[in-house]
């Protein structure tokens, strides 16, 4: 597998990570180095095998009561906010002008 620059940019957009122009070659090279060994797994015959999502497949997921058992820690949570106001998380104002 091999990514073109265009594909890398699409992946970066999905990942929501900015790739600056000067970084493009670096990431293109490094990502493609990783992907270069990938195709080896295509040769494996996995007919009759189902995907294994988790090593503990037999674990039963338990339901719990729909009860609040934590919270009331607004101060703790707001302390980590990059910006907050009146116990709201504040974000930069980004309002686009409607095109006429």
């Amino acid at each position, binding site marked *: 597998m091999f990514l073109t620059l265009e594909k890398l940019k699409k992946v970066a957009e999905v990942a929501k990570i900015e790739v*600056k122009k000067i970084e493009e070659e670096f*990431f293109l090279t490094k*990502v493609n180095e990783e992907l270069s060994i990938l195709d080896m*797994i*295509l040769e494996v015959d996995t007919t009759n095998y189902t995907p294994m999502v*988790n*090593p*503990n497949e037999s674990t039963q997921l*338990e339901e719990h009561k729909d009860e609040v058992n934590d919270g009331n820690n607004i101060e703790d949570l707001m302390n*980590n906010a990059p910006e907050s106001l009146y116990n709201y998380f504040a974000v930069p104002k980004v309002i686009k002008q409607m095109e006429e």
Partner: protein
Amino acid sequence: MTELSKLTMKQAREGLVKKKFTCVELTEAFIKKIEENRNLNAFITETPELALESAKISDEKFLGNDNRKLEGIPMVIKDLFCTKGIRTTAASKILENYIPSYESTVTQKLSDAGYIMLGKTNLDEFAMGSTTTTSYFGPTVSPFKHKSDKRSLVPGGSSGGSATAVSANMCIAATGTDTGGSIRQPAAFTNLVGIKPTYGRASRFGIMAFASSFDQAGILAKNVTDTAILTEVICGYDHKDSTSLKVQVPEFEKNLNSDIRGKKVGIIKEFEGIDKINPEILKQYELAKKIIQERGAKLIEVSMPNLKYSPILYMVIAYGEAASNLSRYDGIKYGFRTKEKVDSLDDLYRKTRGEGFCRNVKKRVFVGWNMLSSENYEKYFLQAQKIRRMIFEDFQNAFKKVDVLFTPTSPNEPFAIELTKEEIDADITSNYLNDLFAIPVNIAGLPGISVPMNLTSNNLPAGVQFIGNRLDEQSILNFGLAIEEEVK
């Protein structure tokens, strides 16, 4: 009396019970060691005042004969475990000033047992790496040096800060996490015992997630007995972790038994004769095989033909899971947010994450999202998950014939930090080579332990690995003890 900072947990416990020294004195000894070893950069956050406060409480507990299992034992915590009120960073700029409002289950269990936290240790950013050189807070340096080459060496990773702290006697033991070898490999690089329990034994609640179907908390300690004690404490069902196993935790310490006569040890045919193993490591591995046989166990060759796909599987599945897990770091509710001007919410995300993550993390996230794309998901991701099942079956078949499996922990001796500056992402062969023997254990969710052999002729540590059947930590601890008794 042995210098306080060189005590094992067992010795420290006995000393405290017999009142040979106080918890405060023990803690002070380690605080001093930490101050003397700052050049190794093992810590992201030191907590000496908190440690001394806890030590005073522990001394009162001893006076009242109310001491708990780990009362007064100074330890360090990998900075991937959320510790309430204490900064937890994952060694990333994006969480540089993050202070959790909750405690991880593993550290809560240690607290309930009375341990003393000396600080949060350095790691590869978001646990992605095997050298502890990708941290936003700088690399950690191994306390070991090559006999003739004076360059600073890597302690391994990603739990390198924990490894260095224990190995340099800055604490008695440490927690780590292991997603593809991140406890076992640094243990091997720093002459320690490192254990990764069965996936689901120790709760992942409160551990910042890397790859959710691989991650597991574990222990780095100076010997097998200390490791057994701590593994018992950190394991146990947790309803807050949906992958936690509802199984009893055995009394690992009490059941330690180095008598391995009649036991069968599997040697993996596909791993024998790999030419990339360092000859010094090979020498120790072969010596360990002799010890095993002299102790009365039998070596049996097993074939595990699908193990060769392990590094690729890791790349596809673990990076895919990581890409998803790291989506939460968006600069909105917590963590770093870009100061640059933005013109949309997406722009805020892009710039924040672009500035907040290191290049190694970004690279892995790009690979991961690529694996999860609609054109690749079925062809690669699902295919990898099917091969995962094949590897799991390879292990199951092997355990029909043997009690444990045995490999070197890492094919490499510890290497110079400066070699990693360009090469962290460059030579994927050696990157994967570092964890070649370790990764399959995470793929199958099995328990694995690294125990130290003799130092090599370069005066460097060499570790060997035992892999146990599911939930059979006891066997690998027992085998570890057998090796330890012959080596020390």
